[in-house]
């Protein structure tokens, strides 16, 4: 066995042992703290008159077991308000960004939502507790398989996953009340806009891994007009002195 593989194995076993010791109560406490932190940031961000993050979204954030969606090696940091690697060069988003994105699509119980870029399945799990059904597409085979198994194991029966191209959406289940696109693209796929129901909302985080630069919100009005908004994830006025 190669040396670095052995070292990695020993480390993984060690971390796993520590993680297993961390019981459900510890995780629940960590989750509560995470929600508190996200909420405190949200109220700071939204001092420009916008409403704070919806109580419903925050409640769900406090119930989804994020530690189940990160590799064992990162479980101890699962409830830190930061993005974490999930393998395949992908990351699980920062909880704060997940809350913000979920809030932006204004989910309600009867909604059918499409997600492009399943990743670990965490965003789908959050959505699943807020809406009727989530359809989610992933282009990386390993991630798609892992997320499918994980969501099934955790009992998310209202999430359907698929391995494949997200560019053309999921025609047979369209239109969607909301679409979340977490896969990076140089342009917004026109078919996705077509599959958005009038009055629906689409949200796209823009930026690299570990770095969400801004959120793009696309709204389709009841008369099929498209309005796009770009918002920084954070309140940062580039000029000093409030000019």
């Amino acid at each position, binding site marked *: 066995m190669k040396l670095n593989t052995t070292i990695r194995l020993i480390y993984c076993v060690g971390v796993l042992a520590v993680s297993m010791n961390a019981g459900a109560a510890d995780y629940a406490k960590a989750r509560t703290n995470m929600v508190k932190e996200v909420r405190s940031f949200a109220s700071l961000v939204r001092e420009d008159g916008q409403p704070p993050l919806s109580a419903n979204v925050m409640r769900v954030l406090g119930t989804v077991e994020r530690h189940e969606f990160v590799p064992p090696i990162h479980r101890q940091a699962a409830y830190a308000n930061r993005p974490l690697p999930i393998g395949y060069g992908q990351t699980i988003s920062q909880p704060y*960004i997940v809350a913000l994105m979920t809030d932006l699509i204004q989910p309600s119980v009867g909604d059918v939502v499409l997600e492009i870029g399943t990743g670990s399945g965490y965003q789908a799990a959050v959505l699943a507790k807020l809406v009727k059904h989530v359809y989610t597409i992933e282009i*990386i085979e390993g991630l798609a398989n892992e997320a499918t198994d994980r969501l099934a194991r955790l009992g998310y029966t209202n999430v359907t996953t698929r391995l*494949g191209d997200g560019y053309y959406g999921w025609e047979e289940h369209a239109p969607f009340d909301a679409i979340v696109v977490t896969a990076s693209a*140089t342009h917004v796929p026109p078919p996705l806009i077509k599959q958005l129901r009038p009055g629906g909302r689409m949200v796209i985080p823009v930026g690299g891994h570990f770095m969400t630069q801004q959120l793009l919100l696309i709204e389709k009005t009841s008369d099929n007009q498209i309005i796009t908004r770009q918002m920084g994830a954070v309140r940062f006025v580039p000029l000093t002195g409030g000019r």
Partner: protein
Amino acid sequence: MRLLFFSTLLVSAAAIAYEILLMRTLSIVQWHHFAYMIISLALLGYGASGTFIALSKGWLKPRFELAFSSSALLFAISMVASFVLGQRVPFNALEVVWNPRQFLYLAVVYLVFFVPFFFAACCIGLAFSFRRDYINRIYFFDLFGAGLGALLIVGALFVLLPQHALLVLTTLALLASVLTGLTSDARKPLLAAQAICLVGLLLTAPHGGLALRMSEYKALSQTLQVIGTRILTVSSSPLGLLTVVESDTIPLRHAPGLSINTDFEPPDQLGVFTDGDSMSVITRFDGNLDTMAYLGDVTAALPYRLLDKPKVLILGAGGGADVLLALTNGASNIDAVELNPQMTRLVTDTYADYAGYLYNDNRITVHTGEARGFVAKSDKQYDLIQVALLDSFSASGSGVQALNESYLYTAEAIGEYMQHLSAGGLLAITRWLKLPPRDNLKLVATVVKALRDQGVDEPSKRLAMIRSWNTATLLVKLGDFSADEIEAIRQFARSRSFDTAFYPSMPANAANRFNLLEQPYLYDGINALLGLNAHIFIDDYKFHLAPATDDKPYFFHFFRWRSLPEVMALRKRGGESLIEWSYLILIGTIVQAALAGAVLILLPLARIKRTWPAGTSTKAGSYFFLLGLAFLFIEIAFIQKFILFLSHPLYAIAVVLSGFLVFAGFGSAFSRRLTRRVELIHRSPVTVTVAGIALIALLYLALLPVVFDQLMGLADGFKMALSIIMIAPLAFFMGMPFPIGLSRVATSAPDFIPWAWGINGFASVISASLATVLAIEFGFSMVVLIALALYAAAAALIRE
């Protein structure tokens, strides 16, 4: 003794070649900014070996051949071991702002790559220390080998992948070990060890043990994760590792700035990644321009709505995407410039059929060369000059380029482009849109400076910008925009749901209508940059917006120290993209270089008994410290200056490093003669040499821009030779202050000599990265001026 000379040459050649190879390799597996760390590492190796030899003299002297041969062998082994292990350290630069452990990994990377340089330096140091009678010839072979090694590796990288070039270097070191081992008493165990090393190498290499392990966060690694994606071809040169990728299940669909309400889709594309990042595409083309209709709906198509069948110059042809854009939008004649000939060959040869023999079209001429050089030597006028968007959004967004110099986007570059426009012609530059805005406003600030430098009183009449949700296209006109043209811009933007960010006399309510930003940042920013108080706006802005110039060509650097506390506090609230991590890594590198230098070079010297006269430590110590800083400051500043002239950082590093090594060596050899002559006329030799350095350096600061401008169009080989000739006199003088100081110490305080070496080495180790920070903050000219001040201070110290 001949064997020793030849072995010295081999080790020197392998050491500098390894230095350059590591820069290339780390650019591929990580990012470009590690160059400064590698220079610092090599110097740390030399510094630490000096200390080691000084402290182990008694033991090493009678075992010279064994020590040299073993060091060369360990150099050979550690070259491979560090290459493999260094890439396995789980350092993730993108995670630095989240995970302080990354700085620990960075330190591990630093120490892993230090080892081979330590052993290489031991060989050279041993030869200098214990074969003093032949010191001049050893010095010659050392420097000649270094020069040769730099050229060898640049040549080798044209035909070999980095991991294969590594084998060549290992063989050189192994050969040096065998040659010196032949005369050692312990030649049998040595031969056995050498044979084991050779067998190990032969067993490891063919099984992919040396394969490059690219960061999983680079664009190529990410793309290869997608189902149905595979690598078609890989080609390598010092200009970059080109990887062509096909994705037959999920098309790449690369179309930056495509309108949200377009009806068209991009056709099939092949992705071409340079060093695993910066994707360019080769688009499937069958000659039918209708299949390219989507190219009419990108922001970069705007200039073609204002021009009729323009003659176009494209800077950065890449895989031909912008050439297709021009063709689709009615260009009558296209000159396209591409730096990397291997990139052009992909379109003309390897994938010519796929690309529809695009470059065979008689309207298109493709030129191989550097964009600035091409423009400088061209006497043609164009209706449109288009600067292509070749870097990736994620690279642009994550601050990965902050330390990359770019001479494409400087005020001088813009000025040159404008001079090659025909009357009424347009310069078009498309950049990714970042929020809060940085690139786009810095570009405007740079253009405004260029226009004002050319005597344009009202730049506002010549600018227009539109934006989609992720790109912004800036137009700069040679002349004022007419009312019809402004209407055409508005019409183009409106019909594609693009926003107008600026056009002459644009009312505030015309901004921010389709893609709604929290504030009309670009409209407000551009107006501020065009106003009387532009300098106040730039001063107050939380990102660095001051125009990029050839002296400070860091277009992608937006970091401001005073914003750091605020952005660090915001990182947990989604503000992480506000932080430029590569700048923080550079600072981290300086700190760890200082620590490593202190522990590995200076601390062991404390064992030396202090027998020298009072005051020597302070005075002589300061002298050698100042020299260490000053030498590297000038060297790094000139590497940066020559990047513009030689078109690529690797060429500049190879040529400037070997130039400085060789001619500083000649200067060093001449220093004794100079000292004798100058002391005859009762002058301080250091003052005379420092005056020489100052005179030449100041002359170069004034003349190099003009010289580069005139000679930019020459062939690469000529430019390299000329560069060495230009460096020669400066390096010659810079080679003198150190040996002059050393000979003084040798007479007044001989026991202080190891300290002199150590302190000088310590200063060198931190100065490579420090010079880069100073260049980013104050410009290269200022770095040179600071170095001259340091030299002057050193001269003042030793004159008394």
